[in-house]
Every structure is written in C-alpha cells, then in structure tokens.
C-alpha cells in the first residue's frame, strides 16, 4: 500500500513466475548482466589490434562537426554534398556546433531542398520520381489497408485525415505564391 511503508505485493510469487515463464530470473543478478553501459576499461575485448586506426583517404573535403578535433579515421561516403542543399549542409557544419539549434535546423532545411531538387532533376532522367510506386501506397490495396484500420481503436487514425492537408498545404501555398509572383512579373513587363 502506497501510503504505508511496505511495497505492494505482486499477484504472483517468484516461484510461480519461474514455473510459468521460460527463463524467468536467469539474469536476476544485476552484476552479471553483460552490457550495463558503465565504463569498464577493457581495450582488448573487441578484437581490435590497433591503438589508433589507419586513416581512410579523404576523397573530397569531407564535412565534419567542429566539435571534432580532426576528421575521424573512418567515415561514410554515401552521398557527398551537392548543389544548393550541399552548400547549406557545408554551412551548417562549418559554422555551427551540434549544440546550436541552427546547425540541425539548417540540415533539416537542406534535406527538404535536396528532396525537392532531386525530384525536379529526376524529371530530366529516364526514371522520374513516381509518387505512386515510391510511397508504397499500392500496398493499401494489396495488404488490407481498410481492414487494418476498420474497427481498430488506433490513436493514429485521429490525425490521418489531417495529414494530407498538412503535407500538401506548403506545396499548394508555394505554388500559389509562385503563380502570383509570375503574374506580377508578366504584368509589369507588359506595362
């Protein structure tokens, strides 16, 4: 009972749980659990035989956090920065530490620029972006889209009718703004 010193009793005893649940209590001793993230100095456990790894060649000026002393000896090379999004990313890394909101917000902005630019660029290729196949929305038909939601008390259903509006609104507004601006430019030229 909470308002008195004793801890409330659980419905089942340890013996009953041991009998009912395979492996119950196998790791009862906290000192015997393998991965407590506390420091346990043991540099030989991993199988590494270097003290500081050999350095991976830097093929382009690799962006890095200014909280690092130098470029880490190993790094990924998945998508080098390119175009306008790349310039924003480089600015975020060059100018702001990870402690600054500007760093992350610039990177998120660069992601959106990258996505929009890549979509536009894809129309100049033989494989343009396809919102039907790439969103996987066809699985709504093949994998019980309606049945998965009908009669289910799912919390996410409350937001789903709003999602298309939230997602589409910035595009519609941007399109409308571009249309208005273009119209003004055309009018001025005619005038």
């Amino acid at each position, binding site marked *: 009972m909470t308002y008195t010193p004793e801890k409330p009793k659980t419905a089942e005893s340890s013996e009953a749980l041991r009998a009912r649940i395979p492996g119950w209590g196998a790791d009862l001793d906290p000192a015997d*659990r393998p991965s407590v993230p506390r420091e346990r100095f043991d540099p030989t456990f991993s199988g590494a035989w270097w003290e500081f790894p050999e350095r991976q060649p830097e093929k382009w000026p690799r*962006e890095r956090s200014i909280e690092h002393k130098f470029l880490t000896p190993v790094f*990924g090379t998945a998508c080098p920065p390119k175009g306008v999004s790349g310039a924003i990313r480089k600015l975020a890394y060059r100018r702001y530490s990870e402690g600054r909101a500007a760093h992350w917000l610039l990177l998120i902005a660069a992601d959106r620029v990258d996505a929009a630019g890549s979509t536009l660029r894809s129309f100049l290729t033989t494989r343009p972006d396809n919102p039907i196949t790439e*969103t996987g929305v066809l699985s709504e038909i093949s994998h019980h889209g309606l049945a998965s939601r009908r009669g289910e008390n799912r919390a996410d259903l409350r937001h789903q009718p709003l999602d298309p509006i939230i997602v589409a609104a910035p595009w519609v507004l941007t399109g409308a703004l571009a249309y208005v601006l273009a119209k003004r430019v055309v009018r001025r030229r005619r005038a």
Partner: protein
Amino acid sequence: MRAMVYRGPYRVRVEEKDRPAVEHPNDAIVRVTRAAICGSDLHLYHGMMPDTRVGMTFGHEFVGVVDEVGPSVQNLKVGDRVMVPFNVFCGTCYFCARGLYSNCHNVNPNATAVGGIYGYSHTSGGYDGGQSEFVRVPFADVGPSLIPEWMDEDDAVLLTDALATGYFGAQLGDIVEGDVVVVFGAGPVGLYAAKSAWLMGAGRVIVIDHLDYRLAKAAEFAHAETYNFAEYDDIIVHLKKITEYLGADVTIDAVGAEADGNFLQHVTAAKLKLQGGSPVALNWAIDAVRKGGTVSVMGAYGPLFSAVKFGDAMNKGLTLRMNQCPVKRQWPRLFEHIKNGYLKPSDIVTHRIPLEHIAEGYHIFSAKLDGCIKPLIVPNAA
C-alpha cells in the same frame, strides 16, 4: 547492385547503385542475405532525422556472407557467414575501450553526440546500409561475428539490433526481483524488452500500445499484461490505479520519436520537424514511474530538442538511463538464452518482403497494415 534508395520523406525506391568498394584496409564487403526494416528507420523515412540525403540506402539490421576483405583484415575471410551489429565502431577509442561501442569517437565525423550507424543518415556518419545486395562494413575485425552454426539467419538478423536493444532496455531499468515494469510500445523492441524483463526477475510486466494486434503479441510472446491507451481517458491514471497508486518501479520507453502525440505535438514534431520527435512516450514513462524509480530509454530520438517533462523527473528523484545499444556486448549472453530456449527472436517476424518491393514494405510497416510487427527484407542476391 540493387539497393533501396531514399528519394525524400515517405518515398523510397530500388535502383541500380555501384557495388561498395573497400575504402579502408580494415573494411569488408558483405553480400546481404537478410535485412530488416527497423522502427527507427521510420524516423528517416518520415524525414525526421537531420542530414538524411537523397540517394542514401537505409538498413542497419542485416546479416550476410563476406564477399571481399581489405588487406589488413585478420579475423574474417571470404565466405564467412556473419552478423553485423548496427553500430560502426573502432574498438579502441576512449569509449570503445570502455565497452561503449555505440559511442565510438572514431567513425562519425558528422557528430560527436552519436556514434556511427549503418544506413542512418549523415548525422550517424554517412554510411550506406544493408537494405541492398552488398554493404561496406568498416572495422571488419571488430564489428561482425560469425553466425553460430545452429542459429537461423532470421534469428541472427534480429540480434543485430532489435533483440539486443530490447534486452538492453530492460537492463537499463536496473530491474530487481519483483519489480513492476511498464513498457511503452509493443513494437519489436518493446516486445523483446518485456520478454527480457522477466529474465531479470520482474514480478509484473505491463505493455502499453494502441494497436490491438501488437498487444495480443505482447500477451502471447512476452507473457505481458496489456492495455490499449486509446481505450482510456488517461492511461497514466489507469496505470497508477492498477499499481495501488504507487506507479511502476521501472518504465521503459520503447517508442522513441515517433509517438503520435496530441495534435500540436503531431504538427510540430512529426510534420514540421521542429522537435526531435514527439516526446509523448518519454513523458508517459516519467509520469508512470514511481518516485525514486528508473526510466529506461532506448527508443530512438533525433538530435533536435524535445519538450520533455524534466521538472517532474527531477522532483520525483528519477534515474534516467539511456543509450544506443552496444550490441556486441550483448551477444554472448543472448546466444545462451536462445540456445536455452528462453528466447526465439524470429517469433515476431510477420512479413518477408523482396528487396524490389521495399516501398510497399516501408508503407506497410509505417502505416501498421496487415498485422505487421517485423518485416524482413530478402535481397535478390540472397
């Protein structure tokens, strides 16, 4: 080679990419035979993780066969069947030397607050992931392990993150015999955390979610007591009532940034990306635990700030413990548990999806269609 490629929020496709090459003498190239989509991949898919670049291949849960090794690799050879932890780590930096492999300082130039993760944006180092036919595996002498002869590939792939992380979440809770443990989230990691809580001696394990089919799995697979929060006006009050108004001894946030939240949280976090995710699950974990209790967090959050109820955590005298899981430290013990029959990881797999259909796979998993709990990806070269 064929690989999944990110095209922008909610859009992925499979395309032809260059086969990865050895870029460092200790690299290996692994031919992927089984991969998975992880709940935290959805943060990338939804555009929530900063510096997720178009063209990136996701996938940090994968196993495969060594196809090529760099000149300095000593512990692996071509043809070895390997499982690869989701952490990229060097093994000898200050953090690795202390077993904190997920916090390795030598593999992620893009950030110091997070280590290297396969296929997890440039914020985690810019490594391509394993939802493809081939993948580059740095530090091949320290990361991968041989898959034991007796272990099925479907079980092995779940050890590369989901099971190890679930076990780790229970462990972060510092559970002692008889503890009441509440797990928020009945996805793969939540299911494994609930199951692991029993191994550590929990007296009662409660799982909270809003999807009935996942709660049914939690009851069956993890022997848990389950509640659908959507059926309660206030799930916290309900949890207090069923724990004699004490609260849980340990709460585990196995949801992370993708919690649905109220409308304001949904818009600011999920849609406008102005928070590092919706902190609903984390706040519930803080609310539902008793004073002096422990909150364990291994649900993934992005680097942006989140509106977390820190004042309540302080006033309640809570211990908050969290990290990305240092996967390889878990394996020897988890191998024993699987061998002893205490855990059968692949029991939660619901879908096997060919790599070519990965866009559908992401949508099914993201929209929670078709009773999906854990989808595995089978590359063409498998």
